[in-house]
């Protein structure tokens, strides 16, 4: 019995026949086999994902990709996406996979927040001429410096392991496996050059990348891939991954076909086997157990590096965060539901968790109420797309923002959401050597550097306009934000006033 009914194609490459010079470059570019050369012409087949590789590679700009005009009959409730997903599941009986972050407009609160600026009562600052500082620390803070009997400050007793970054930005955890060697090399190189942190992801650390260890945060996830004593000791901080915003409560699965020599060596698993990350850490069934893992990592790293915990933003995130800090975490990462992924069930990606705007604000407020906020570094991630998002996220309470998708975009990613298929035409989310080789590490690194440099300049411009000359004075400074969205209840929860409300 044949049960498969074709799911209508979503995208259509249009070829300008006059402009096309029949060089066939587009056919080579397409990693989804959606184009062919037939009858002396480039012809369109099924399977286009709108990754735009052919569009950008075409020397005569002869290709345009559009959404197929033969769309479903309009319906306000049964959107084409919903109908397409029902069709697909009826075909296969499978859990729908997707990648990148949640694809749901209603969750964007950043766009409903406005920033303040200085007028008259305090001078704005020109960051090009006067210093505006963005240096940021990651790690536990002592709360107060220790003063001895004679009234002298005891620095040895006051200092804690701290990582210094030149910007309040961390490139998030993206494992080798989910992205290619070249892509990870580019991110690490950029982090080193910018003197910020980059996460290793859960796939261990390739030998070639130890040269970047001063700027790396080593992830310890439930699969413990590649977690060795060297890995723990040589990096500048260690991060326990409990969850990820794109798939809270979910584990990971790198299919065996991606586990080739490179991945096998780095993850320290046999060639060709699936790399499975269990859903929970099976040594953490409670907060005391988390304390145990934090402690063993601190002991193993001889208390030289900060140890953090990363969780997905879920409904009770404030209380969980407070427990994590009390369990000894030196830094805490909250990943919002729009955060990226190389592969996640669509149902979790789009429906579970909490937007980072609300989560970071809830955690900041909760830690303040419990008198813990001045002891811990709070990192927030989950679709920090631009400098504006970064600034708002910091003012809502984050010390550091984690960025992944935008760094991918800087390298060439077009957010076509096909990472889980491993055929990334840009050479980023793939282990196929001929595709991976498309990414020039040096070029990609420089593009990431350029983007973060520009963000940092924009951060300085905004802080200067607010009359703030150092980024720590923006952290959790909700006074300088106003809400302008449709739901004032959100403003209340964010502890942000509505636009039009003044100080008193």
């Amino acid at each position, binding site marked *: 019995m044949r049960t498969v009914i074709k799911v209508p194609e979503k995208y259509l490459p249009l070829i300008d026949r006059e402009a096309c010079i029949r060089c066939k470059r587009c056919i080579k570019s397409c990693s989804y086999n959606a184009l062919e050369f037939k009858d002396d012409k480039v012809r369109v087949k099924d399977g286009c994902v709108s990754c735009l590789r052919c569009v950008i590679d075409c020397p005569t700009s002869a290709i345009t990709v559009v959404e197929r005009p033969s769309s479903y009959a309009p319906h306000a409730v049964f959107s084409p996406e919903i109908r397409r997903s029902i069709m697909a599941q009826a075909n296969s009986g499978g859990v729908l996979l997707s990648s990148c972050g949640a694809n749901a407009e209603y969750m964007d609160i950043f766009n409903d927040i406005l920033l303040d600026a200085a007028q008259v009562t305090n001078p704005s600052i*020109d960051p*090009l*001429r*006067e*210093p505006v500082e963005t240096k940021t620390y990651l790690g536990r803070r002592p709360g107060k410096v220790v003063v001895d009997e004679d009234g002298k400050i005891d620095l040895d007793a006051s200092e804690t392991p701290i990582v210094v970054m030149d910007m309040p930005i961390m490139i998030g955890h993206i494992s080798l496996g989910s992205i290619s060697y070249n892509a990870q090399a580019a991110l690490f190189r950029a982090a080193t050059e910018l003197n910020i942190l980059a996460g290793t992801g859960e796939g261990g650390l390739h030998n070639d990348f130890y040269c970047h260890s001063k700027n790396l945060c080593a992830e310890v996830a439930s699969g413990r891939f590649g977690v060795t004593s060297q890995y723990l000791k040589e990096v500048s901080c260690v991060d326990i991954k409990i969850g990820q915003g794109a798939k809270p409560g979910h584990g990971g699965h790198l299919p065996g076909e991606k586990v080739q020599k490179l991945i096998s060596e780095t993850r320290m698993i046999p060639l060709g086997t699936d790399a499975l990350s269990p859903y929970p850490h099976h040594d953490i069934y409670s907060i005391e157990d988390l304390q145990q893992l934090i402690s063993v990592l601190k002991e193993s790293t001889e208390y030289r590096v900060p140890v953090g915990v990363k969780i997905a933003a879920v409904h009770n995130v404030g209380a969980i965060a407070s427990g994590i800090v009390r369990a000894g975490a030196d830094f805490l990462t909250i990943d919002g539901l729009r955060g990226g992924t190389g592969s996640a069930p669509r149902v979790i990606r789009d429906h579970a968790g909490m937007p980072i705007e609300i989560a970071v604000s809830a955690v900041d407020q909760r830690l303040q109420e419990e008198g813990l906020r001045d002891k811990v570094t709070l990192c927030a991630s989950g679709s920090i797309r631009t400098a504006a998002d970064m600034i708002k996220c910091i003012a809502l309470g984050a010390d550091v923002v984690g960025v992944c998708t935008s760094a991918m975009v800087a390298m060439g990613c077009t957010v076509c959401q096909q990472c889980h298929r491993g055929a990334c035409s840009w050479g980023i989310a793939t282990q196929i050597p001929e595709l991976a080789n498309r990414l020039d590490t040096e070029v990609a690194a420089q593009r990431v550097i350029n983007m973060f440099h*520009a963000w940092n*300049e924009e951060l300085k411009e905004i802080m200067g306009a607010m009359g703030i000359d150092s980024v720590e004075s923006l952290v959790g400074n909700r006074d300088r934000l106003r809400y302008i969205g449709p739901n004032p209840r959100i403003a209340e929860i964010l502890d942000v006033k509505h636009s039009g409300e003044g100080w008193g």
Partner: protein
Amino acid sequence: MKDDNSTVVIDAGERNQLGHPLDYRELNRRIRKALSEGQERIVLMNVMGQRYIASATGSPGMRIEIHGTPGNDLGAFLNGGTLEVFGNAQDVTANTMNEGRIVVHGNSGDITGLAARGGTLLVKGNSGYRVGIHIKEFEGSGPSLVIGGFVNDYLGEYMAGGTILVMGINCPESPVGLNVGAGMHGGRIFVRGGLEGHQLGPGACLAELDERDAAAAEDLISQYEAAFAATVDRTVPLRKVMPLDSRPFRGHYDSTTI
């Protein structure tokens, strides 16, 4: 009409019925009245914080002596003549001065010479932060600011023309603070005494004086000596701070259509 050569004396400490000293409005009203009557030599006694003295006045022969402590914005928009302070001046002296001469036999405060585009300011002692900020040249004339002692940070910030000379008299350390010439894109700063690279702001660089610079500096030093009956030791070397470029932040922006 009185004799043109006579001097008008105004006592700024004079009390009104409530016992308050002369308000700046009344003080300036009397100054303007005297000037309008052709009295160009005016002496102000017992000045104590009155602001905006002689603002927007100016004629080539005007000469106002100020005894005491004039308030902020002394000589704002000055357009000629001479103001001479026997005491210290407060903040924002010579704000947007266009022409004329202000001589301070003491110190001046922060933001001295803000946005001046002409004239000469001579301060015998020290000055504060942001001295000479955004002074500029226009149609061939630029302001000259001379500070005898030291100044603090942000000297000549945004500077777009004119000349600043800081002499560091009786100043064992560097006579200028940090961020010297931050974002400057015109003009020159002469520093007599120590100056290290880390003190320069973005967009500024160190250079040697050429012949014209040396002549200009010598002229300003002579003016200082004449104004304050001082002798300045010529063996202390001068260094020059100048802009790297007339448009220092060109690469900062991106105008791609988004």
